[in-house]
């Protein structure tokens, strides 16, 4: 063939390829427009709607397990410690004198919290993933009894009452409290708690149980959030008081103070209603302690200092004499020691206004915080030896329990449970996620807004796009893998971008997270399954849920009127992730929103991530259609009656 022949052939081939590409592109655009019913869309990757397989996602794959300690319990004679290892489905017994593990027992369902009976011969275990409480005999360390409780029990406390021995269990997902008869295990009553009950403490006389709730129940849009301290009579299970912790949440600990009639609850004082123009001076959040007296009066005091913060308060323990409280700051790897005599002295001197304003005074904590004790990574749960001589700290991401001599406030040893797991990028990423040192003055960690990678149920006003503009609901990071782009307006193509320099500028106000840490952080985030995935996955649907499923996938209304494709639920919320990962307008643009196009969120675990919509204005799923629906733009719902709407919501709760 001649040279010009080759050129001609080449040109023909190029033309053919070009035509094919052009034709394929034109076809794909046509295809997208037909199947989404949206003429505004151009080219969209096939992956947006096809080839998504749950089993291929990082969170659906097996991951390394670690000996991360959660709940602790100390034997009555102070010689043995019981440690719950939820990630390994084990409870272990350790010898305090030698720091060695002496026995292990398998307990299925993520054993998370422990409580001993008064005689010390029975150990009660709350299993977070199995929704049950198990009794172990301590002499044989064998399971002898179990009972079903609410969803995701994470705290348990034993109480000897005139009515009999009781267990009070905080069920963090079903938002209720199981009150159990201790032997044999039997649920007596399950009163409603606040949102995410997470810690339980019993008063010295056994007459009251204090349940700290981690999140605020969503209320009116832009109102001041308040979590709840639920006080109940453990004997009868009757709720005595629901004390609001104003503008406070993320309480993960509770303690009753012997001899003072106080209960103490660590808290995050959140300031989500103020534009995030700065971080300094606790502008976004600060940490404190709520002191509730028997009359229900609550004083919030700061634990932070003017230029140093102690992020993510978690467990709390008080010595038997009621002289000192110890508070774990999980994000700062610090135990703060509060002198309760000094605190009482300060409270006695302070007038009502001073007490009310105390939490805002960042220079106050020196009045009562007498020491800060460093720990290894992520101190969470605390336990005190019966004689008050030793404080035990579960260093969750270090796979160890630190023992602190309370006389010298110096460490006296460490019970090593595992290797710390630093070979595992997911574990390293969790360390990054929980570490406050990435933010200015260690003010908060990723976990401070995303407990367990989930939501804090609040909306925030970032200043990067204008003060007062574009309020954003905090989205869950659970089940986030495969759902890019990120951010409500979909501008971040990857988690690395989402959590990278932009984040350092608008929120952390420090340097960006180093690249290797960012990679690990991404691995961790992608490993987070949607809330309660294992419990819901592949479970048979109830008739109501089946009906709801039909509505979700309906192409026509009850009377046979076709539903436009772009308003059919499953067009945008396309299985298996229940998102097509495109921006959509569903008529929710607010007066201060710069756009009406928002990222279509995935719906896995949607039941647990209230509030809803891009700015969090809908406090329940129902409100999406009963209050914030505009001209059937967010799916056609105007034909539904109350029962149909309920069915739809019941189905959504199964996702």
């Amino acid at each position, binding site marked *: 063939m001649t040279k010009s022949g080759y050129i001609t052939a080449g040109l023909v081939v190029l033309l053919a390829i070009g035509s094919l590409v052009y034709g394929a592109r034109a076809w794909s655009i046509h295809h997208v427009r037909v199947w989404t019913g949206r003429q505004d869309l151009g080219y969209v990757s096939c992956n947006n709607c096809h080839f998504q397989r749950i089993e291929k996602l990082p969170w659906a794959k097996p991951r390394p397990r670690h000996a991360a300690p959660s709940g602790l319990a100390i034997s009555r004679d102070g010689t043995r410690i019981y440690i719950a290892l939820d990630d390994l489905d084990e409870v272990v017994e350790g010898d305090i004198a030698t720091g060695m593990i002496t026995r292990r027992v398998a307990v299925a369902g993520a054993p998370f919290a422990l409580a001993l009976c008064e005689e010390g011969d029975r150990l009660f275990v709350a299993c977070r993933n199995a929704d049950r409480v198990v009794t172990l005999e301590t002499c044989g360390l064998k399971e002898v009894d179990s009972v079903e409780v609410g969803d995701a029990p994470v705290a348990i406390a034993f109480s000897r009452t005139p009515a009999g021995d009781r267990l009070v269990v905080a069920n963090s997902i079903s938002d209720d409290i199981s009150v159990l008869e201790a032997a044999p295990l039997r649920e007596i009553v399950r009163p409603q708690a606040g949102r995410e009950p997470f810690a339980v403490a019993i008063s010295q006389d056994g007459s009251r149980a204090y349940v700290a709730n981690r999140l605020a129940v969503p209320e009116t849009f832009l109102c001041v959030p308040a979590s709840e301290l639920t006080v109940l009579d453990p004997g009868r299970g009757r709720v005595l008081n629901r004390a609001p912790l104003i*503008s406070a949440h993320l309480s993960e600990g509770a303690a009753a103070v012997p001899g003072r009639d106080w209960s103490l609850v660590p808290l995050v004082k959140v300031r989500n*209603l103020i534009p995030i*123009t700065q971080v300094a*001076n606790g502008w976004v959040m600060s940490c404190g302690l709520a002191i509730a007296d028997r009359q229900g009066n609550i004083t919030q005091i700061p634990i932070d200092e*003017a230029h140093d913060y102690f992020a993510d308060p978690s467990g709390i323990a008080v010595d038997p004499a009621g002289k000192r409280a110890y508070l774990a700051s999980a994000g700062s790897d610090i135990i703060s020691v509060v002198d309760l005599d000094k605190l009482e002295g300060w409270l006695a001197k302070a007038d009502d206004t001073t007490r009310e304003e105390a939490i805002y005074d960042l220079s106050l904590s*020196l009045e009562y915080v007498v020491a800060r004790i460093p720990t*290894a990574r992520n101190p969470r749960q605390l336990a005190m030896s019966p004689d008050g001589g030793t404080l035990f700290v579960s260093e969750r991401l270090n796979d160890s329990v630190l023992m602190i001599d309370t006389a010298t406030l110096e460490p006296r040893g460490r019970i090593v449970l595992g290797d710390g797991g630093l070979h595992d990028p997911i574990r390293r990423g969790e360390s990054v996620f929980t570490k406050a040192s990435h933010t*200015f003055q260690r003010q908060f960690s990723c976990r401070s807004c995303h407990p367990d990678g989930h939501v804090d149920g609040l909306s925030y006003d970032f200043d990067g796009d204008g003060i007062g503009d574009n309020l954003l609901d905090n989205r869950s990071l659970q089940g986030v893998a495969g759902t890019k782009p990120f951010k409500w307006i979909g501008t971040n193509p990857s988690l690395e971008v989402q959590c990278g320099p932009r984040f350092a*500028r608008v929120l952390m106000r*420090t340097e960006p997270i180093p690249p290797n840490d960012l990679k690990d952080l991404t691995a961790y985030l992608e490993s987070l399954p949607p809330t309660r995935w294992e419990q819901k996955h592949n479970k048979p649907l109830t008739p109501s849920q089946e009906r709801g499923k039909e509505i979700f996938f309906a192409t026509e209304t009850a009377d046979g009127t076709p539903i436009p494709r772009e308003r059919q639920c499953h067009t945008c919320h396309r299985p298996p992730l229940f998102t097509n990962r495109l921006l959509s307008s569903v008529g929710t643009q607010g007066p201060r929103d710069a756009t009406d196009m928002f990222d279509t969120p995935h719906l896995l675990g949607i039941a647990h991530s209230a509030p809803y919509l891009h700015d969090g204005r809908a406090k329940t799923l129902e409100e999406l259609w009963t209050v914030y629906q505009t001209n059937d733009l967010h799916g056609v719902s105007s034909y539904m009656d109350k029962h149909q709407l309920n069915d739809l919501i019941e189905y959504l709760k199964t996702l």
Partner: protein
Amino acid sequence: MTGNDPDNLARVRNRKAEAAHGGGHRKSLRVMAGAFAAVLVSAGCSSGIPEGSIVMTQCPAERAATNEPRDLLDQRYPPGSRVVLLSPPFSAVAVRVLSEGLLAAGNPVVCFTGERVFFAGKKSASDSWQIYESKLNGRRPIVRTSMPGGAMDPAIISSGDLVFSSPVPEAGKTWSTKTPAALYVQVQGEKPRQLTFGTAAAVEPTVLADGRVLFVSARPGGNPMESGAGLFTINNDGTEFTAFALAGQDSLHVRRPREIPGSRIAFLAAMEHGCDKSSVETVLMARPFKSRTSLFPFQTGGVFSVEPESSGTFLVCLDANGCAESPDASLYRIEPGCSVLPPPLFEDRNWRQIEAAQVEPRAKPVGRVSTVVPGKKTGTLLCLDANLTRHRAGNSSPQVKAERVRLVASAGEGTHASLGEVPLEPDGSFIVKVPADVPIGIETLDSQGEVLYRLPPMLWVRPGENRSCVGCHEPYNRSPSNKRPMAVNTAPVTLTITDP
């Protein structure tokens, strides 16, 4: 906790884990390279500087007959003053001059790697003071700044860039010079960028571990002899100008603030102008406005400098007789909690030792992604409640409430230009856009237009900065209460300079 240090444990475990999981030659090479680098760093300096070395400023014990000092540094560092390297066993004959070729030098700051030192110096009597850099191996210093009016007080931010104060004030006129000294950052190869824009001088910067620049300035009015010098902070891009400590307290002369162990700030303080009365005081970072105390109660004057060492001790240059003009200024190493002055670590009858700093690698402060938007002409001021003041915190007083605020800008030489008035929202909040990099003053006005509180032009916003405050003269170290300010429900009013 040393043996159980979690980070060390983590590192060791990480290495073990990596070894267990293989990785081959490349990993080994990387480990070797890392170890080599670590050895270099831990050696303090690749240039062979002995461990425990000290960089020091020496002034001649006998002053040469010269003209009256022109400026502050002429006064502080008379001709012949020099920056030297002193190594153990600290013999007077073994000092190595780092400021060779300069007429005078002083105020050395060692970089994070412990390999270089920055200091102020001048070549000749007619030259201005500039910042010089010298490698500790004794090579001749290189000039790093060329500021009109001179540069002084070097400090180093996380990026390794130099922060300094300029111009050098006339002798005895730090607070009354026409052009007050401001802080600048000098990124190598770029023009220096101004960081502070107040009406009072900004001097003596140091960089805190959290990345902020702490410096000495004056309260509104500009003269600390009248209204008290104070410690202030900015971020390393000049944003978030904030009072840090001492503000509003007794008149005093403040110099050389330094972050020291125990989360404290040490500084030299004197009730009268002049170093001879200076003693070392501290404030706690946890409670900076309510914790002023003496660091060395036994030394009530004559202190020239104090610098922390990594071991927890302090390098202190002082005259044991409490007299600055005495030739006895020597270097001491003082243990924390020490109740009597120990014997000098180093003395030389021919030289007065007036500043000293340890030579060793140290941790970098935290960095920060700048929030300044270059090219923008304005920044935003948001006040949550102009009626919240420390004089009547919590709005519990029945005093008259402000209904409007008037904003003014400094027009130089003590004159103000009006920016305009803005009504307060019912919750006391307001939001305005104001010109960037200009000293702004705020007056709260009652319904009759009477001024309730006045903040003379002293704060500024950087281009694109969103600056917030809890109140006007709000209590120090106060965090805000969680309520959405009504002012943010409307777009901010843009104010511009109208009538000079």
